[in-house]
């Protein structure tokens, strides 16, 4: 009992780490994961990559920074969320190496909670304090007319809302690498900004549906009995309704805003998650460690969310990955049909629809490039989801 103890303490490998190791074993998946990360970077830094306003410009001998001045509350919110997210990931990595158990225990949830709070409060403050600026100055014509000089433009020097009827419907060329649409907007610029819409729709819609699904599934699974029976019949009724047509119907009634689309997709696709979580909870409820937790006198809150939920979350996580792909697809389809976000807000499905609908002609660059973007994004999410499922599955079989 008084043996000298090892000096170097190391944390055991957690369930999450095991899944992560299994998951990243295949280089193929790491590439697709990298593709998703790249898409995220593209979406986060869209205003720096494609913008008709220069980073720096000299007007009347004075240096100005129109691009930075032009950033609105949405841009800043995205930067804030991305920064906090990055900090959280770094914190998790640091915690993993921390050897003081009292620092590490329970700290994760506190951090996540604080960071969420920072994001929510930050976004509210940003929207409150940053005014909407409308900078309609045409800096390019100022340069050509000699009023300004020394401008540094973004790699794609076009704004997504800028129209230029002189170059409308032009195929890809040295000026517009991926061509222009029916009002002369640059397609590459609109694709880059459209990635924001697609990714945020995917994430927010799946976030909403997962939360609803988890809460309803957990309630039904834990309570069992009559409530469970009635609840599951309701869920089955929901599942029988063809979701896409329901969404089209609802979208037709409500204003075409991004938020509405996210909400509607989220509110109609939670049934799968509810079923998964319910099944897991039914199984877990009679598990020994849950019984042991109850016999230790832990409150219901801790039993449900600390002891049962982490053991039930795996299928939800896998489903969420597929769900993101599905939501991106639904959004693209809605935009294609003209029920999506209102122009000039760019969306992949909307650009795609311009290629065939407006003039009766088939403009290949308007369909090919957004089509490829949708295809590869959905493919990446599906592949990652599948790999995640495979990584979790064998663990579930030998899990204790």
């Amino acid at each position, binding site marked *: *009992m008084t*043996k000298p*103890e*090892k000096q170097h*303490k*190391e*944390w*055991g*490998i*957690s*369930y*999450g780490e095991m899944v992560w190791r299994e998951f990243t074993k295949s280089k193929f998946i790491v590439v697709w994961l990298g593709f998703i990360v790249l898409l995220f970077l593209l979406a986060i830094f869209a205003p720096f990559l494609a913008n008709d306003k220069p980073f720096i410009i000299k007007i009347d001998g004075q240096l100005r920074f129109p691009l930075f001045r032009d950033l609105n509350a949405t841009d800043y919110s995205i930067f804030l969320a991305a920064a906090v997210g990055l900090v959280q990931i770094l914190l998790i990595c640091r915690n993993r190496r921390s*050897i003081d*158990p*009292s620092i*590490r*225990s*329970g700290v994760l949830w506190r951090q996540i909670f604080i960071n969420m709070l920072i994001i929510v409060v930050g976004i509210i403050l940003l929207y409150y304090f940053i005014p909407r600026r409308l900078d309609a100055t045409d800096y390019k014509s100022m340069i050509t007319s000699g009023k300004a000089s020394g401008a540094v433009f973004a790699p794609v020097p076009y704004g997504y809302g800028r129209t230029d009827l002189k170059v409308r419907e032009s195929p890809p060329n040295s000026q517009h690498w991926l061509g222009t649409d029916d009002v002369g907007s640059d397609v590459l610029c609109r694709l880059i900004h459209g990635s924001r819409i697609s990714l945020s729709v995917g994430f927010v819609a799946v976030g909403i549906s997962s939360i609803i699904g988890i809460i309803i599934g957990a309630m039904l699974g834990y309570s069992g*009995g009559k409530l469970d029976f009635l609840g599951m019949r309701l869920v089955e009724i929901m599942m029988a309704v063809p979701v896409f047509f329901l969404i089209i119907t609802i979208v037709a009634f409500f204003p075409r805003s991004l938020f509405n689309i996210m909400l509607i997709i989220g509110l109609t696709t939670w049934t799968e998650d509810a079923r998964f979580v319910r099944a897991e909870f039914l199984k877990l409820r*009679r*598990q*020994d*460690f849950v*019984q*042991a*937790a*109850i*016999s*230790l*006198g*832990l*409150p219901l809150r*801790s039993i449900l969310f*600390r*002891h049962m939920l*982490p*053991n039930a979350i795996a299928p939800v996580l896998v489903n969420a990955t597929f769900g993101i792909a599905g939501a991106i697809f639904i959004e693209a389809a809605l935009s294609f049909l003209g029920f999506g976000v209102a122009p000039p807000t760019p969306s992949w499905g909307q650009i795609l629809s311009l290629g065939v609908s407006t003039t009766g002609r088939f403009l290949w660059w308007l369909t090919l490039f957004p089509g490829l973007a949708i295809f590869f994004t959905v493919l990446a999410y599906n592949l990652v989801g599948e790999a995640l499922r495979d990584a979790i599955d064998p663990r579930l079989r030998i*899990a*204790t």
Partner: protein
Amino acid sequence: MNNDTLLDAQGLCVDFFTEEGIAHAVQNVSFSVKKGQTFALVGESGCGKSVTALSIMQLVPDPPGKIVAGQINFDGRNLVELSEKCMRAVRGNRIAMIFQEPMTSLNPVYTVGEQIVEAIQLHQKKSETEAWNLAVEVLRQVQIPDPAQRVIEYPHQMSGGMRQRVMIAMAISCKPQLLIADEPTTALDVTIQAQILDLLGELQQQNKMSILLITHDLGIVEERASEVAVMYASKIAEKSDCKSLFDKPLHPYTQGLLKSLPRVGFSGKRLHTISGVVPDPLHFPTGCKFHPRCPIGCTDKRCQTIEPQLRKVEGGREVACWYAPGYEKHDDPKL
């Protein structure tokens, strides 16, 4: 209930309301556990001993189970009538429980330290660091080597015996007065069994706690318990101090059980078995529930029709059998 009694169950009845009918899982069970002593509850699978333990913790799955009668007095309070909130303060803190299956009794997603700390912080006002130090301390108490390392490891990194030690550590972390051990060694190797039981005995001495030992292993009972109740088909068949039960079992069922035990120096003939199976709790036989399997009672009219109740016989022992010596002399209907 006198002063050295810690837990006193009186006339406990637990029914399960199933679709096929009402199953009487526990019928009129009374026993008391004295402070600092080990009380053993012995019986075959399905005889109601685990349900008895669960009803002490108020953990009988409801629905379908329900405590329909009786009271469980613990330290002056009737646990059956206690609200869920008060009961949570008792669970883990005053009465702790060890489960049968160590492989599944720990949450796989948390380190053992996190799980012990949660239990400690729930019942005691302790800072995170203090709770961690205490967790390491209890792991040391249950003789886990290098506890400071083990405390930050996950259950899947440990063997069955090690996990059972962790379960015991978790149970004793709040210094409960009563430890319910529901078949604590059934899933373990024989060598580990002895270690775990020795450990429980040591901890019992150190912490002055009582143990309610639930088992089907009579060998363990003979070594560890001071009092024994043998359960058969939801009822107590015989209740006695440990020594006299093993010296002179009164109930034919106990006699059968003892005969079925392999002994050192056993001559090599086939082991004795009790013929038949445990009756289905939905369809108990009439009269004495043991009569279809009983060597004496299977032909006796009285055994087939009238059920004997638990009665005191000489030596302070209690038994429920018409043929037990001295049984009929005591016609006191109270017991």
